[in-house]
């Protein structure tokens, strides 16, 4: 009798295993699989540098801009986050100001700010996820929370997006202090890139819509959008990020992302 039980169990288990892919993939599993395929399409980029121009539009149509450079180091382990340095070039009074981030998945990121006038490196609190990044419509978390493990996922539907078809995935931040109750992301079925994101505030109301355009493929099948347009649906303000001059495989290592190098980062 006791001998027969494992046999019976394994038959049941086998039946379940065979059934899952065909019938029982939950929306959560499907959402995660699509998000993971998109995230993993970026694997192996190694490191990158890019120039960014940020154009801030207020509700009256006036605009102001700032320019910065970003260096990123890929940390291949998905349980760890990437490392990045952002250095401001303009406006002139903050030229040389730099922000170093060591991203984590669910723990708060480690962040250091370099203030060039004092030549001082300051460890800063990273709980300010939802605060505006340099007065723009982008929050800190819009830049730092790009790791797969920072969200839970749910597949919603499939619909056309431009001349492609997109899967619509709902993602909910798992990390603390997010300003969002959820995000809806549109991932195309062709090259698996994020084309659009809707951000819902803590009350559940639509707050911002991000459009990602001008995708370009680099060596190794790495895709990068060169135009981000973030529109705040509650205030009418918007911010454009225009990326140029992407360079990959610069040979960076972890020493290039230590707080001590911020003083020479510009």
């Amino acid at each position, binding site marked *: 009798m006791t001998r027969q039980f494992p046999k019976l169990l394994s038959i049941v288990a086998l039946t379940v295993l065979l059934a899952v892919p065909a019938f029982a993939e939950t929306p959560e599993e499907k959402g995660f699989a699509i998000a993971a395929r998109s995230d993993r399409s970026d694997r192996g980029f190694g490191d990158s540098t890019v120039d960014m121009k940020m154009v801030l539009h207020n509700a009256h149509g006036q605009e102001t801009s700032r320019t910065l450079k970003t260096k990123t180091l890929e940390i291949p382990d998905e349980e760890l986050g990437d490392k990045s340095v952002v250095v401001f070039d*303009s406006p002139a009074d903050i*030229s040389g100001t730099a922000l170093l981030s060591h991203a984590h998945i669910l723990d708060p990121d480690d962040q250091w700010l370099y203030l060039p006038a*004092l030549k001082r490196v300051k460890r800063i609190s990273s709980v300010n996820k*939802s605060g505006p990044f340099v*007065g723009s419509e982008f929050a800190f978390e819009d830049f730092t929370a790009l790791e797969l493990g920072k969200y839970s996922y749910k597949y919603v539907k499939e619909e056309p997006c431009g001349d492609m078809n997109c899967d619509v995935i709902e993602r909910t931040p798992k990390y603390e202090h997010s300003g969002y109750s959820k995000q809806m992301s549109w991932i195309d079925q062709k090259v698996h890139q994020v084309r659009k994101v809707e951000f819902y505030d803590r009350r559940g109301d639509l707050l911002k819509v991000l459009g990602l355009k001008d995708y370009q493929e680099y060596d190794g099948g790495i895709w990068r959008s060169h135009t981000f347009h973030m529109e705040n649906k509650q205030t009418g303000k918007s911010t454009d990020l225009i990326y140029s001059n992407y360079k990959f495989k610069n040979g960076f290592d972890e020493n290039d992302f230590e707080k001590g190098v911020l003083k020479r980062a510009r």
Partner: protein
Amino acid sequence: MAGEIDISGFVGAETRVFTQSAKQPGQESNPEASLILNPEFRYKKDSHQFSFIPFYRLDSRDHERSHFDIREAYWLYAADDWEFLAGLNKIFWGVTESRHLVDIINQTDAVEDLDGEDKLGQPMLSVTKYNDWGQLDFYALPGFRERTFPGSDGRFRGPLVIDTDNARYESSQDEKHVDFAARYSHYFGDWDVGLSHFYGTVREPRLVLNGPGTKLEPHYDIINQTGTDIQYTKDAWLWKFEGIVREGQGETFAAATGGFEYTFYQVFDSAADIGALTEYHYDGRHADAAPSGFDNDVFAGVRLALNDIQDTAVLAGFSIDPDASETFYNLEAERRIGDNYEIEFRARFFTGADPGESSFPLEKDDYIQIRFARYF
């Protein structure tokens, strides 16, 4: 920017209005105006970086405050895990806001501001090594820079002028004594830690009455100073500590600053952040060391950052000594105008000092300062 010279920096116009007539004989009471030039030149090629930052202030009143300095003029070679630097440079150590106790490499340019954050360029040879277990910096510092002090026309001084032409040194090599320093710094999770040692000419001189009793002479001793700076960053809290032990300037003494900063993010559903700061200062130095106004003081302040397009920021605070009647108030605010201009406001008030307390000589030096700068 490789291969071309990057030019930045600012020119500024500044005025200080004193709310009371001068206390000390020789000081002028009318407003003070200054012109500041601070261009910055940088050049970067491969692993080499060059920096040149001259500084000039022309002051309408105090000839000691009108001064020229070279803040930076160095060559830096950066390899993968080490750096070498030769030339004039500024180095900052520390974590606290209201006093910079551990920071010792550069001499304070004391005529610039009372906050001790303006520094003179220090000649140095330095080597930095990055390791898995932390960063090591070694400095050889040939050529001592004397502290700047207000002249007879200037505010922020006692009845006797400090005679910077007659500095005295413990070292027989005078200002040519080569000083040395080393620092270890790293982070362990939420902890950032620094440990440093300095051997050489002290940056803050003892002030000794001259023979005729008409002036104070700065006396620079040779010291050993060990310092540590620690910050613990958790959620919206920053806990900070700096401590030093100094040997060689009178009796050996210790001093420490510790406190916290807590930030409320996006207050009242706005983009603004409000931070609350408190720091306690202890200084065990004896009468035979350089004077310090931080023997037993509490600083409390509020920081407001609007996080708007103009980066508007305000810091307001006060310092009190529980054993004394004096209070120092400080208000700082700044805001960008357009893309290239910045306006900066300062107000500083000294109240309630009794004779013998450290701010008593400054009791009439309350002022409001406005600086307008063009950045390029």
